[in-house]
């Protein structure tokens, strides 16, 4: 971390930060103020920023209109079934692609990347048919099992690979000279040095699962198994939306991930630097 020297530059830095923060805060403020407004006020033009009256009942109404407690537990179940898989499989395969030398690994990796490039809309139907043959449509298996095989997670693997590549090779070589096996290098050298990256992948995966709409929409067949994002979508009817409820429920639903992000960001950024290793 570098500390700007002169007072003027420091002031400038804060000014820029505050302007940017104001801009990025805008959507969230909009969400919260809408959550506290009656439907009529949300869309007043020109728009108003202060709710009058404060429509606190939006929160109660939204949360009781649907079984959000159940949706919350369902979503949490999915998180538990997916995030560890992504971290484990993502890191071992990134390790294989970044730190173990074998012929063809870059080609294989490039081919894997292509999974990101085929539009989802057309693989949806064949994939669904596959799960149907397996008899697992309606369960959480199609939503979680692919993550344990890296499917839909190539982006995470790519990210981890990029980070693993930035760790000096000499560390591995030294361990191999001492007779270490690749697993030891993975577990004792690469993983500890990549905690920020693992945390990033973990957080991104968590948020991705939290917000995923399309997969639960397609694969779930019973409202008892619905997730939070499906619950939110229920407030946008085909003809009219219950905006106050939608905004209130959205606010509640994103609060946990805001807190999670706040707790995690420190670790992402105050993790280990490589200074001590090379210097």
């Amino acid at each position, binding site marked *: 971390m570098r500390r700007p020297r002169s007072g003027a530059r420091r002031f400038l830095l804060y000014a820029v930060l505050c302007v940017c923060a104001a801009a990025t805060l805008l959507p969230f403020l909009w969400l919260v103020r809408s959550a506290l407004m009656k*439907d*009529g006020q*949300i*869309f007043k*033009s020109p728009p108003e920023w202060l709710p009058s009256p404060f429509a606190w009942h939006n929160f109660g109404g939204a949360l009781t*209109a*649907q079984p959000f407690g159940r949706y919350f537990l*369902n979503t*949490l*179940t999915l998180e*538990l*079934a997916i*995030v*560890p898989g992504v971290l484990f499989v993502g890191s071992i395969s990134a390790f294989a692609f970044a730190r173990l030398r074998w012929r063809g690994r870059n080609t294989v990796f490039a081919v894997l990347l292509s999974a990101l490039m085929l539009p989802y*809309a057309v693989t*949806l*139907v064949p994939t*669904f*048919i596959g799960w*149907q043959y397996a*008899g697992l*449509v*309606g*369960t*959480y*298996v199609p939503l*979680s099992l692919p993550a344990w095989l890296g499917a839909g997670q190539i982006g995470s693997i790519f990210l981890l690979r990029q980070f693993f590549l930035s760790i000096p090779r000499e560390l591995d070589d030294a361990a191999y000279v001492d007779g270490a096996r690749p697993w030891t290098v993975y*577990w004792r050298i690469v993983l*500890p040095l990549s*905690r920020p990256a693992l*945390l990033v992948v973990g957080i991104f995966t968590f948020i991705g699962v939290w917000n995923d*709409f*399309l997969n639960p*929409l*397609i694969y779930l*067949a*019973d*409202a008892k*198994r619905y997730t939070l994002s*499906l*619950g*939110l*979508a*229920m*407030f*946008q*009817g*085909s*003809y*009219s*939306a*219950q905006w106050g409820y939608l905004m209130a429920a959205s606010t509640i639903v994103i609060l946990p991930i805001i807190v999670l992000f706040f707790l995690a960001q*420190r*670790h992402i950024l*105050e*993790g*280990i*630097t490589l200074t*001590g*290793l090379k210097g």
Partner: protein
Amino acid sequence: MQRSRLPSRRAVLRAGAGALLGGAAAGCAFVPENRAHHLEFLFWGSIYEDRGVHAVSRAFSRRPGRLPVAAQVVGGDYATKINTLVAARQEPDIAYLPAGLAMRLGEGGLLVNLLDYRHKYPQIDDLLPQALHYYTETAAVPQTAVEVMMLWYSTRLFSKAGVPEPPVDTASAWSWDRYLETCDRLTFDEKGRRPSEKGFDPTQVRQFGATAPTTVNTTLYALLRSNGADLFDEKGTRCIIDSDAAVEVVSQIVEMMYEHRVAPSPTLLTSMNTGTALLLKSGRVATTIDGYWNLLDLANAQFPYGAGVLPKFQEPMTAQTSGITGIFKRSQYPEQAVEFYLQMADPRSCPLYKQGLWMPLERSFYTDPKLLATWTDTKIHPAGFDRSTAQPALHNVSPDPTFRIRNSSEVFAQLTPALDPIWLGKHRGTASVRKALRHAADVTTPFLAGVYPDVKM
């Protein structure tokens, strides 16, 4: 190597074990459910509709010998869900279907022909002809309900301006000019000036008299038909939205926004659009042409509202639309599905009619005063509603053309965007509008692929 405050590997392992345990506890969600001996019903809609449907489902399942109904409501992207299910041949027993999809599935032989059951269930013969859609000469699917366009208004704003309220009889429907005149008296800028008065500030309008009826297959369609115009020719091979009669209607609607200034432009409307009920309640708009289904929201919004018949160009006319409720041939229980559908269609067993979401499908619920009262004689239906709704629904109605023409989703995907520049005010004056409409017709015509059979019961 610096020790960080990150979780240790042991903690990670522990978390992993916890995850597995948690997963096992919630493991039931990983095991397929046994859905045999259920009637699977897939539908879209608001939370109110969900409640209404579940009420009918429960009542249905309680009857002896009837299957439990597994009703699944889908919020958000219904099209993707239903299309995926159909593509995988994993259809539910019964489902709401968008018009284009329903006709295609019917033709593809995937849907039960409702007419096959008319001997067993005589109610089917009572269904309004415009609510049945024939995909072959002898086979048809029914609408979920009937929805006609009406002229909704805020009675408070009318009495405040001292303007007579819209008529509820088609016989005395307002002319378009009369409607514009009324809207002028209901439009005010921030200083209280009307559009026809000197110094009116169109950038600071407090209250508009109307919204522009620009939805091509419903509100615009009603007015086009009222002027004797149509979107497509009889055989469904040519788009004729550039006819003189159509040019007149479209020009008038453009003038309404940009010349008479009694209706907001589309850019303004999208930013204040909370749906019809709140537009009227908030006093941003005094009248608006929109579907019957808005009654449910209007009733919940709790303010004085009224409903009249649409203004006319020549003939009084409204448009009628709705989704389709389709029963899939793949269902093992088609007869139970038909019965369930008919129960949904009966205002005496389904609360959604009285609540103002749906209008009945059976003719007798319009013609028999006693039956008419079962769904219009409520606190939420405004005075004269039996006339303002029942008459047009039976006599002065043009069904949504989406049902009639083949390939409708692609056709409207061409036509609707081609009209955008017109509504945005880029074409003013009859000649310019005509040119733009000709262009719209030209880009749409190549996608027309004929019509479905026009069978009158």
